[in-house]
């Protein structure tokens, strides 16, 4: 074991090295097993205590599934495309997992101490892949309960729900649930296998990144088809295309057959999905040994950073670790710096948006969706509060996405020391760009709808923009997660930890979404023309209050 100029024989050291590692880490393994058992116990306990009523409802639904309603035939028509859209989105998410985490992973210490040795990579890496595949199948089966439950709740659980109704409720629900669980388990298995291959072959990474928008566009088209099927009657061939368009369509066929038997070739579809899953898993299992060292190093580093962030419940650090795992980006978007100091943060925030256009596109899409939802709610004639609240939640998300510049300053208060502004005032300065973008994005369609309908009440939407941005700023400047929140305070009604954690994360959206939902729903639901003016005045006051509160939080962040 010395330095030498001669060729060194490759030792057969895999078995002794891994056996030594197991022996040295036996205590650690026991502690990990105990910790895992504790978490299983905790989750089971929480499910039983807090989910008791949901479980009872599920058992009731199993015995007596909700009867079909007038909407049930529409749901039945929409379900194939909707299930295919959901399956495609799940597939994309699982495949993209290979870009930053992947089914083949090693702990950082093992990467640092064993990866550079002659230990057989196959023996080192394949157990991790087996674990990932097993977990994926279990997770897939569990996720499969969700669409089954949704279909049962929508009246498709009873035999012949699409038509006659009645029949063997329990067995129908069980058959539906089993079909759905099997399909999603196979879909997850298939995705894990393909993700393993993607991780193994780096040339596929850029391909996957480029294909993602196209896949999401297909998912959006499938969702559109589902919406069309809910409202009208699209040609049956389109539904067939959705069901046979790929593994995402095959995955829905057994479920569809279980609710109405209108997917006659479902055994073929599930068989194809099963064969594909098995082939992908087998190929990926063989290929796992060849996952390149740099890929394993990068994934171990990302996982380490992300695990630390998750343990600290620090969602921002989780997002930062995820972003850092992506390809390095070049600052292509340029903007001439302003001459006036008052415009410098405006310029800085425009740069942040221009250099992350996906944020801008996502925010615009959410804002347009929110406007559409409010427009539909206004025409609906029912109490618009719930759809308007949903629209405000989407609007809040759009505002939060546009606040990246503020978030970067809040992440590390030292970043802004060279700026000629008090830190507390940054909350106000950073609000300008998100507000303007949302005013333009939401204002155009809202104005067009007002003109088309000859009704100005939709302009109430514009009032909500500064309020939603203010709420986003309140959240941006919340600071690091305080560990003492975990302990909470014991009260006669129980420990406050859970409530405090929810409020710590959700204080901004709660303060912004709840009042704007009430404000807009009352404005668009009232025939009184003065309601719009009232909404404007109240909205302005709310925005000012939230801005001041965000500034106060920012000041505390700097001081603390």
């Amino acid at each position, binding site marked *: *074991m*010395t*330095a*030498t*100029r*001669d*060729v*060194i*024989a*490759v*030792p*057969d*050291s895999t078995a*002794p*090295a891994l056996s*030594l*590692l197991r022996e*040295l*880490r036996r*205590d*650690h393994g026991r502690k990990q097993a105990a910790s895992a058992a504790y978490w299983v116990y905790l989750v089971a306990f929480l499910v039983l205590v807090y989910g008791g009523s949901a479980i009872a409802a599920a058992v009731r639904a199993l015995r007596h599934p909700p009867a079909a309603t007038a909407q049930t035939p529409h749901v039945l028509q929409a379900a194939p495309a909707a299930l295919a859209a959901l399956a495609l989105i799940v597939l994309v998410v699982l495949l993209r997992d290979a870009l930053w985490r992947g089914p083949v992973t090693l702990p*950082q*210490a093992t990467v*640092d*101490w*064993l990866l*550079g*040795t*002659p*230990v057989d*990579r196959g023996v080192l890496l394949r157990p991790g892949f087996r674990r990932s595949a097993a977990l994926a199948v279990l997770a897939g089966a569990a996720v499969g309960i969700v669409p089954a439950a949704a279909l049962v709740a929508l009246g498709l659980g009873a035999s012949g729900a699409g038509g006659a109704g009645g029949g063997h409720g329990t067995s129908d629900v069980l058959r539906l649930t089993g079909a759905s669980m099997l399909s999603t388990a196979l879909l997850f298995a298939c995705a894990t296998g393909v993700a393993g291959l993607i991780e193994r072959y780096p040339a596929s990474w850029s391909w996957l990144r480029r294909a993602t928008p196209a896949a999401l566009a297909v998912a959006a088209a499938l969702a559109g088809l589902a919406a069309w099927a809910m409202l009208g009657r699209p040609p049956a061939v389109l539904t067939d295309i959705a069901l046979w368009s790929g593994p995402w369509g095959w995955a829905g066929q057994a479920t569809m057959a279980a609710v109405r038997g209108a997917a006659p070739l479902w055994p073929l579809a599930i068989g194809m999905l099963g064969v594909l899953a098995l082939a992908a898993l087998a190929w990926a299992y063989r290929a796992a040994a*060849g996952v*390149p*060292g*740099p890929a394993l*190093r990068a994934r171990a*580093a990302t996982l*380490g950073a992300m695990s630390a962030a998750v343990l600290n419940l620090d969602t921002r650090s989780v997002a930062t670790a995820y972003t850092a795992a992506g*390809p*390095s*980006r*070049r600052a292509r978007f340029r903007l001439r710096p302003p001459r006036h100091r008052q415009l410098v943060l405006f310029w800085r925030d425009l740069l942040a948006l221009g250099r992350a256009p996906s944020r801008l596109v996502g925010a615009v899409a959410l804002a347009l969706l929110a406007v559409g939802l409010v427009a539909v709610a206004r025409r609906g004639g029912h109490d618009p509060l719930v759809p308007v609240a949903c629209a405000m939640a989407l609007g809040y998300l759009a505002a939060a996405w546009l606040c990246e510049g503020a978030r970067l300053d809040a992440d590390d208060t030292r970043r802004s020391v060279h700026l000629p502004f008090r830190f507390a005032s940054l909350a106000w300065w950073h609000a300008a760009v998100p507000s303007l973008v949302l005013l333009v994005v939401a204002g155009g369609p809202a104005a067009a709808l007002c003109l088309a309908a000859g009704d100005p009440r939709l302009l109430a939407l514009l009032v909500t923009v500064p309020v939603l941005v203010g709420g986003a700023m309140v959240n941006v400047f919340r600071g690091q997660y305080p560990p003492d929140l975990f302990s909470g305070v014991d009260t006669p009604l129980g420990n406050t930890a859970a409530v405090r954690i929810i409020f710590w994360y959700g204080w901004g959206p709660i303060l912004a979404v709840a009042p704007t939902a009430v404000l807009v729903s009352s404005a668009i639901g009232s025939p009184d023309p003065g309601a719009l003016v009232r909404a404007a005045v109240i909205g302005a006051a709310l925005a000012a209050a939230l801005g001041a509160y965000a500034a106060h939080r920012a000041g505390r962040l700097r001081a603390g």
Partner: protein
Amino acid sequence: MPPASVPPLLSLTGVSRNFGERLALCPIDVELAAAQCVAVLGANGSGKSTLLRIAAGRDTPTTGQVTYDGRPLAEDDLVVRTEIAVVGDMVSAYPDLTAREHLQLVAVAHGAGGRAEALVDKALGECRLGDHGGALPGSLSSGQLQALHLAAVLVRPRRLLVLDEPEQRLDPAARRWLAGLLRAEKEAGAAVLLATHHAELAESVADQVVVLSDGAVIARGTPAVALAAIR
């Protein structure tokens, strides 16, 4: 550069590296033979670590070729993992294993078998960690952790050492010890590729010095020639 009669063990030909559109390393040629040391000097961000990662097979050059003992270099190659010892990008340790156990693991993974104990004792002593063999990584200072990483090189066979700033976090006495260690490695026949900020270290162990600035070679030659060019 190695004398014409000595075939290079490591050969980098026209190697460059781009990160996106940024050129981190301009095309460079480096050859390194057994019992030779090439030191790479340069400021932070000059491309030293990029060059060493490529030389260790842990990164792929944008252009050019890297060969080790006449074969294309790749970290995943079993021979490369057996013969090339790398220090520089170890960032973590098993929190529940002692310094001694880390070294045992490396020794056994390189086929030391029953000789592992003796090798570990010797390496701990050489790296002045004799009193810290039973310490967990969390209780070691950063300098001691760096010494542990260097000790991990000594418990395994090696033909080529790729060391990225091995002197970092070491005190002056430990740096002198490091210089002696590298000279001994050369004398035993190993090739050494060393990136360092310390001109004295390069001067005392290197046969050739390459000076990088913004990814480009601005001086190269014997230590006397290359260092004179930048002083």
